[in-house]
């Protein structure tokens, strides 16, 4: 076994043992502990757990790569996935915490005095969370197969087993403490390579500052200026100004923001803290911990792009000899994620924006973070750490999603609608069984990713943005909002969003059924399906308020309920008696 593999086994084995230890130490004894960790998590702990819950395989592995190739256009992810926390902290979390229940559908069911509303919310939650979880399971499989040369399937089984142990034993309590450990692992794994690379390129160890500094080669040229020059000479769009289009960027950022604020597995975490004050605070801490990664990511992206361009063409006209390509180049060629084709037969590598002459026929954006330490010649233990970090990011998010799904089924559907007289012990058992089934379903989807896996991203955020977010906002800020109006709003929001996604990406993403085609000329104001959640949300609001005029306001005891959860003081009637 070579050194890298040994280190990787130590890093992965060590972190996994830690997760098992925490699972045993934090096992849950009641439904309150299982769903909301007994309400005893401090804001700082909750902030860290939210950070790990939120930052998925996509944030850890894909985001910097996206930014590396989109440049300024990648800002939609940076602003969209952080700006949502402002909405959460100001508009949703404190009031939902005050109401004092366990799940998002439960809040919607209480506020809209309707089992139908609760069921609609459960359906949205399950679709959004399941589509989201496929990506995490794939991330686990890929990390194992790339770094440990274990079969993809085997890697997935190992990942499923680990999540199974701590999620079923500990529920929210076990997941929370594991997520805290996973946050520490993933942020260390993300920042250490970034610090090294920033130091190498600019002499400044802080990546956020390094990105705005001059190059360390003594030329006195700013890194970003040099990058702009290099990429535009090769025909690519200038890094710092390449945009996705004005309307598209606006709609995309807004969709990601409100989608983030409407994702149930994140909102749920705010039910774990002891008070309203703590809910506000934990949103702040959460964003600090998230920002640590999100402000480093643009530096990682730009520096990875710079290193890649520089390796291939160290100076204008002096291209890399293919025969002398570095080791990481060969490693990634084996995976098929990097591919070279010597079109002009000169034995050198030409990388340009022109399809006819470009010889780097495949540069998968996902390799940017994973290959980064190797490209920068960092020691093997750093690479091993990146593997453990990627796994931590994928597992922590998967666990949060699984809990959201299983609590929606055991608490909202079974206890709330089907078998209301279930006692607590039975419910706890039921939630563990549902959790087990959810892990198996998630594993199955990871093993047999449906053909539409690539398009599901749009669906998860689109659904959260167009249904859950508006329903919660209106429930809190409009006392009069009635059950009928809210349900009509949710259904039309989802309807419009799904229709748009399907008509451009295919019904259930089956190729050939996209009756308007994926083509840009057919896009509504040039908005891509990924960015359509904001339009769906707008439709939701309009329909709901129009229906409210027609059907009349909510009954007075519901208006009193709203008045009550708007202030931190006192109990809400019926709260905490589970």
């Amino acid at each position, binding site marked *: 076994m070579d050194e890298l593999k040994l280190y990787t086994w130590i890093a992965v084995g060590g972190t996994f043992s830690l997760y098992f230890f925490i699972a045993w130490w934090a096992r849950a004894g009641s439904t309150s502990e299982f769903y909301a960790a007994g309400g005893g998590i401090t804001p700082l702990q909750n902030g860290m757990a939210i950070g790990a819950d939120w930052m998925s395989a996509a944030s850890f592995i894909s985001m910097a790569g996206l*930014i590396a190739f989109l440049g*300024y256009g*990648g*800002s939609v992810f*940076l*602003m969209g996935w*952080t*700006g949502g*926390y*402002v909405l959460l*902290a*100001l*508009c949703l979390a*404190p009031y939902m915490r*005050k109401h004092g229940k366990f799940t998002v559908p439960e809040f919607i069911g209480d506020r809209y005095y309707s089992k139908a509303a609760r069921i609609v919310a459960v359906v949205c939650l399950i679709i959004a969370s399941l589509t989201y979880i496929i990506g995490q399971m794939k991330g686990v499989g890929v990390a194992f197969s790339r770094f440990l040369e274990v079969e993809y399937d085997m890697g997935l089984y190992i990942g499923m087993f680990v999540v199974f142990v701590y999620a079923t034993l500990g529920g929210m309590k076990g997941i929370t403490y594991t997520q805290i450990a996973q946050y520490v692992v993933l942020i260390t794994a993300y920042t250490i390579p970034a610090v090294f690379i920033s130091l190498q390129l600019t002499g400044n160890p802080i990546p*956020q500052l390094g*990105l*705005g*500094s*001059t190059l360390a080669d003594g030329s006195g040229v*700013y*890194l*970003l*200026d040099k990058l702009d020059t290099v990429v535009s000479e090769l025909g690519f769009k200038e890094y*710092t*100004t390449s945009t996705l289009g*004005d309307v598209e*960027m*606006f709609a995309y*950022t*807004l969709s990601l923001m409100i989608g983030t604020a409407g994702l149930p597995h994140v909102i749920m975490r705010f039910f774990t803290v002891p*008070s*309203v*004050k703590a809910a*506000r*605070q934990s*949103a*702040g801490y959460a*964003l*600090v911990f998230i*920002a640590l990664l*999100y*402000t480093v990511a*643009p530096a990682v992206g730009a520096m990875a792009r710079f290193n890649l361009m520089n390796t291939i063409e160290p100076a204008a006209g002096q291209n890399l000899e293919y025969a002398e390509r570095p080791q990481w180049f060969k490693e990634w060629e084996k995976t098929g994620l990097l591919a070279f084709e010597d079109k002009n037969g000169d034995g050198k590598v030409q990388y340009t924006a022109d399809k006819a002459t470009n010889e780097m026929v495949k540069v998968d954006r996902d390799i940017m973070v994973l290959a980064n330490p190797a490209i920068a010649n960092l020691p093997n233990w750093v690479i091993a750490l990146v593997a453990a970090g990627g796994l931590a990011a994928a597992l922590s998010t998967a666990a949060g999603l699984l809990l959201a799904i299983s609590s929606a089924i055991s608490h909202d559907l079974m206890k709330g609608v089907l078998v209301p007289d279930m006692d607590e012990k039975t419910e706890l058992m039921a939630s563990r069984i549902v959790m087990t089934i959810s892990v198996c379903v998630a594993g199955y989807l990871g093993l047999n990713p449906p053909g539409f896996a690539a398009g599901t991203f749009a669906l998860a955020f689109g659904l959260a943005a167009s249904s859950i977010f508006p329903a919660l906002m209106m429930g809190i800020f409009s006392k009069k909002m009635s059950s009928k109006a809210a349900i009509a709003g949710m259904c039309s929001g989802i309807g419009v969003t799904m229709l748009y996604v399907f008509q451009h990406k295919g019904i259930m993403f089956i190729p050939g059924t996209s009756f308007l085609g994926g083509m840009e000329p057919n896009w509504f104001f040039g908005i891509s399906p990924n960015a359509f959640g904001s339009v769906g949300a707008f439709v939701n609001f309009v329909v709901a308020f129009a229906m409210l005029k027609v059907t009349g306001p909510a009954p007075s005891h519901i208006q009193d309920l709203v*008045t009550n959860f*708007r*202030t*931190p*003081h*006192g109990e809400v009637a019926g709260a905490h008696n589970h």
Partner: protein
Amino acid sequence: MEDKQSYWQENLRLIFICLAIWFVVSFGFGLLLVEPLNAIRLGGYKLGFWFAQQGSIYTFVGLIFWYGKKMNDLDKKYNVEDS
């Protein structure tokens, strides 16, 4: 009841201020006004680009803590802190 009304009004005012800033730094400086702002430099960063990839995020963090602090004061003023 009167108290709860004005507590909520003051809260709404705070939310409005925060969301206005939230909108200006991200959608304003980061997207709509990015081109004129890019004429200004912050070290190696063009200012519009910096807001889109760094500045907006720092502002978001600041906003949440500021709002939390103001709300704690407000809770005290109206004597509605949670037990």
